[in-house]
């Protein structure tokens, strides 16, 4: 877990965040510091430790298979930046 491997441009692309060159440089350095700091977790031997996903565990949480009212068509699209023919649209996806 070395921060040499940290390529901010690649990761920002993966996260779909466009950064200016100035941001890349500044944030890259800051994240380098932070990733360096979290290296301290390597000091601990955790080979026999179970991971904790939730500190207060419950299990088998389900809901009955029942239909419940949702949003009206108008409510559902009220916040949408671009709607055509009742569909939320983006520029054409090329596959």
């Amino acid at each position, binding site marked *: 877990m070395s921060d040499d491997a940290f390529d901010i441009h690649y990761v920002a692309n*993966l*996260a*779909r965040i466009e950064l200016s060159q100035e941001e890349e440089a500044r944030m890259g350095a800051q994240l380098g510091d932070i990733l360096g700091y*979290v290296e301290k*977790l390597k000091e*601990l031997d955790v080979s026999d430790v179970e991971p904790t996903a*939730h500190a207060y565990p419950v299990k088998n949480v389900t809901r009955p298979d029942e239909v419940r009212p949702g949003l009206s068509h108008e409510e559902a699209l009220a*916040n949408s*930046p671009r709607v055509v023919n009742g569909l939320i649209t983006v*520029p054409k996806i090329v596959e």
Partner: protein
Amino acid sequence: MLNQLTISELTEKLRSGEASSREAMQACLDRVAAVDGKVNAFISHDAEDALEQADAADAARKAGADKPLLGVPIALKDVIAVKGQPLNCASKILGDFVSPYDATAVRKLKEAGAVVFGRLNMDEFAMGSSTENSAFGVTKTPWDLDRVAGGSSGGSAAAVTADEAIATLGTDTGGSIRQPAAFCGCVGIKPTYGRVSRFGLVAFASSLDQIGPMTKDVRDSATLLEILCGHDPLDSTSNPEPSPQLTANLNGDIKGMRIGLPKEYFIEGLDPQIKAAVEAAVKKLEGLGAEIVEISLPHTDYAIATYYIIANAEASANLARFDGVRYGARVEPGAGDPNPVFNLYARTRGQGFGAEVKRRIIMGTYVLSSGYYDAYYLRAQKVRTLIRQDYLNAFEKVDAIVSPTSPVLPFKVGEKADDPLQMYLADIFTISCNLAGICGISLPCGFSADPKLPIGLQLFGKPLGEETILRVAHAYEQATDWRAQKPQI
């Protein structure tokens, strides 16, 4: 002034007919108009709607209704969804988004009769400890308008302290209720994970987030929390336990209670005035009959690293939905863009998110990316187990744990803005509470001299141990008069 009252004081006046909800609401609105230009606790509020709700509460009371919060003005952090109100999370990226639904916490407040008004400022998406990371300006502590209110629930803490609302709700992922409560001098409680439904709380870190009350005194926190708790079928992580009785035992009696003092929390870098105030508070608790026991939480030093890996990893996925496609402020790609959908995402998010949010998403994305999962995320989850075990071990010996809330006093606006790591390190006392999933409260325990700034005392309780820490906090509050001191704005 009605806006200065606590929930219990106002409710009494509303019940007796001595005051109306409209008068109380108007008093809060007047106060907002008078001071919020300086404090900047509110992002927005709809006065007309608030007064309408107050009138409806008054009419209901006339018709014989009596509910625990009937007609009480309560303001919310801008990360909790209220139907028909804007929901921005203090970010530009949500644009003019209006929530089409109520959070479960909001539904419960409304069912209890509260007048729910206003959107309170915060660090964008609850990421930060100073409310400087807001697209809507910095919130200042009412005690010194050059200094931050803390964060991320800075607006919630400042608003209730400045008497702009009777009570507020904040959220706490790594101290975001307790630290601003300490910086502003109010009471704030982070419930046990799963106590309060997260449905309608915009997620930062799903396994750590909790909604909690921010109030003028301990009793109000107990009153609100009692209403907010309880199982919610809309939240799979919600505790199945029924809502606890929290106000019934606030009797000042803590004789024989064992309170742990973690030696790891009295560290280098702890402000001497804070240290002194907390030591005095510990003496006071001892004087009230509590037994003070030194305890050890050996993995404390690993909490911040663990937290920033887990919280940012979860956040990187939680915040992926803010992309300008279904809602929010979209940045359209230019005509002829060879990669229009990719650029729609990247520019919407590049321009819509502030620096801290981008930093955390990128870090979270990195620690989950191919080849790094085990080294970062999985390891952090294992260390989380050790941290949690520290607390569970301690609670074998003690009923509550006492500590400072923050190692530092409210700092000047801009003072730490350029060094995110230093900012993170100041979360040292609050963060492990969320990792361990236990409950914690912060309440005033004194002031620094010159400048006069509030100091917070923190108490931790076991999972579902809210009743205990509220009882201790209440006993301490009754035995001191810090609450009587009000900031002059």
